[in-house]
Every structure is written in structure tokens, then in C-alpha cells.
């Protein structure tokens, strides 16, 4: 039990993610989380505005159930499987967070207070940054036809060149944001 409460190393997490992908394939489905965002738009009635959302979203209910399971998994971990919320990131990265972005106490919890703290709800720029970040993820995932699960895990596992191109795009965007965007914003 003590071992479970420690952070899990990559060689435990990676194989388990492959197992999740395999399970969904074995149950006649696919591993693609961002499809849920489209499904939710469709369920909310977006089909009346765009054909893109005009499909029988009820066929995707299994994926929404998977989504609920993911939230439960987070809750179970938080309640029973962890002693501390701190994340031991590399010291040089911790230093660059302080020097470049002014983030103090980097890694003392899962998310930085500078972005996800109480001010996230009260300041216009705080709210704007969070909504913008999600907007880019949601727009980009649908434009690219998938996110990390659909392209980086499932697509690469099936040796799909389009997925490799998408993952290269993920990194182009991620590096641009990390080296140029974040220092501008914070």
C-alpha cells in the first residue's frame, strides 16, 4: 500500500495506458478522449447550428461513461491513494519557473496557484487565460482529428503517419507556448 501511495514511475503508467487502449479496442471501441467534447456539444443541441454536431451522439454514451470513470479515478486517487500532492519536478525546471515566470513554490501541488488559484475566478485575465487555454485545446483537437489519446497513443501504436504529423504539431505548439507564450503572459 505504501508503494501505491508513492508517485508511480513511467514504466508503470505507460503499460497501464496501453492496457486502457487495448481494453477499449477489445470492447469494440477506440481510445479517444476529446471525442467527448464533440459529443457534449451535440448533446447540448449544437447540431442545429452545424452539421458537424449532427450525429447520433447516444452511440457515444460509452465514452461519456468512460469520462465519468476518469473523474472517479481522480477522486479515488485523491481520497485513498496519495499522501502528498507535491510533484517533484527537476530542480533546473523549478528554477526556470521562478526566474522566467515568477512562479513560486513550483511543484508543491499538482497545479500552480498562479494559474489555478482562487484568483482564477475573480480576475478577468485569470478567467480569460483558462478559457483561452481550453479553447485552443478543444479547437486544435477537433481540427487535428484527435488529442493525445487518439493520436499520440492510439495513432502512433497503429503506425499512422497522420498521427505522427499531429504529434509534431503538438510539440511545435507546446514549445512555442512554453518558450515564448508563457513568459509573455506571466
Amino acid at each position: 500500500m505504501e508503494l501505491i501511495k508513492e508517485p508511480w514511475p513511467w514504466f508503470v503508467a505507460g503499460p497501464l495506458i496501453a492496457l486502457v487502449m487495448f481494453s477499449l479496442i477489445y470492447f469494440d471501441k477506440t481510445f479517444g478522449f476529446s471525442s467527448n467534447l464533440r459529443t457534449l456539444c451535440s448533446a447540448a443541441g449544437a447540431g442545429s447550428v452545424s452539421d458537424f454536431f449532427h450525429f447520433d451522439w447516444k452511440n457515444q454514451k460509452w465514452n461519456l461513461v468512460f469520462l465519468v470513470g476518469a473523474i472517479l479515478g481522480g477522486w479515488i486517487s485523491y481520497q485513498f491513494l496519495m499522501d502528498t500532492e507535491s510533484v517533484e519536478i527537476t530542480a533546473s525546471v523549478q528554477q526556470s519557473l521562478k526566474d522566467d515566470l515568477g512562479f513560486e513554490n513550483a511543484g508543491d501541488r499538482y497545479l500552480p496557484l498562479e494559474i489555478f488559484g482562487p484568483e482564477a475566478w475573480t480576475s478577468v485575465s485569470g478567467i480569460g487565460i483558462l478559457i483561452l487555454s481550453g479553447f485552443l485545446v478543444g479547437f486544435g483537437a477537433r481540427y487535428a482529428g484527435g488529442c493525445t489519446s487518439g493520436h499520440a497513443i492510439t495513432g502512433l501504436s497503429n503506425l499512422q503517419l497522420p498521427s505522427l504529423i499531429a504529434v509534431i504539431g503538438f510539440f511545435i505548439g507546446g514549445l512555442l507556448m512554453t518558450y515564448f507564450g508563457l513568459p509573455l503572459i506571466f
Partner: protein
Amino acid sequence: MKYIKFILTGIVFGIVMTKAEIISWYRIYEMFRFGSFHMYGVIGSAVAIGIVLTQVIKHTGMKSFSGKPIQFAPKKKSIARYLIGGTFFGLGWALAGACPGPMFVLIGLGYFPILLVILGSLLGTFFYGLVKDKLPH
């Protein structure tokens, strides 16, 4: 009853995302600064095992749980949509520090400002649906 297997798979997914700190903003920042092997190990080992599993399924003609042949749909060929869409996704991934799965897992840990990120991701998805015919694919 038929949904129980999906909620269980989702729970395993949520626990792995949490316990391996994949849902941590800091781990994503660290990955994009090439500061640690952790995230590369997670994705790399998942893909390595995924490639083997996919090949085994294809070569053995393995049947699914319901007895149907397992088939893999190839992705449509293109460069523009994957590169441009992927770049937008990456910009958001590095800012939010979370891709779509972890966004929802974080609700379970009580990080409620992530709900604004999820709202944004729904708006972004909706916006794509509005403009997709005008975009290069």
C-alpha cells in the same frame, strides 16, 4: 450493465493519470522544457507496447469481446489539418498543462478552476464545428 466495463476502464485511466502525475501542469511544463524523462517514458512505453499489441491483434485476427473481428480505421491522409490543428492543440496543452483527459480527472481532485478550461474546450470544439468548412484540411 453494459456500461460497467467502461466506467471501470475510465477509473483505471483516471488513477493512472493522477498517480503518475500526468495531470500535473508542472509535468507538462517540464516535458516541454525537456527537463525530465518522465513524460517521454510514459508516452514512449505506452506506444511501444501499443505497437506490439496492435500487431498481435492484426496478425492473429483476434476477435473482440463480442466476437467481432477487430479492425483499425486508418487516419485520413493529409498534412495541413494535422500540423495546423496539432499546433493549436499544443499551444493550449502547454498553457492549460492538461489535455482533454486530465482536465476531467482534475475535477475529481477538486481543482475546480479547471472547469473554466473545460468550458473553453467546449467552446473551441463548437467554434471548429462552425468554421471547419473554411479551414484548410
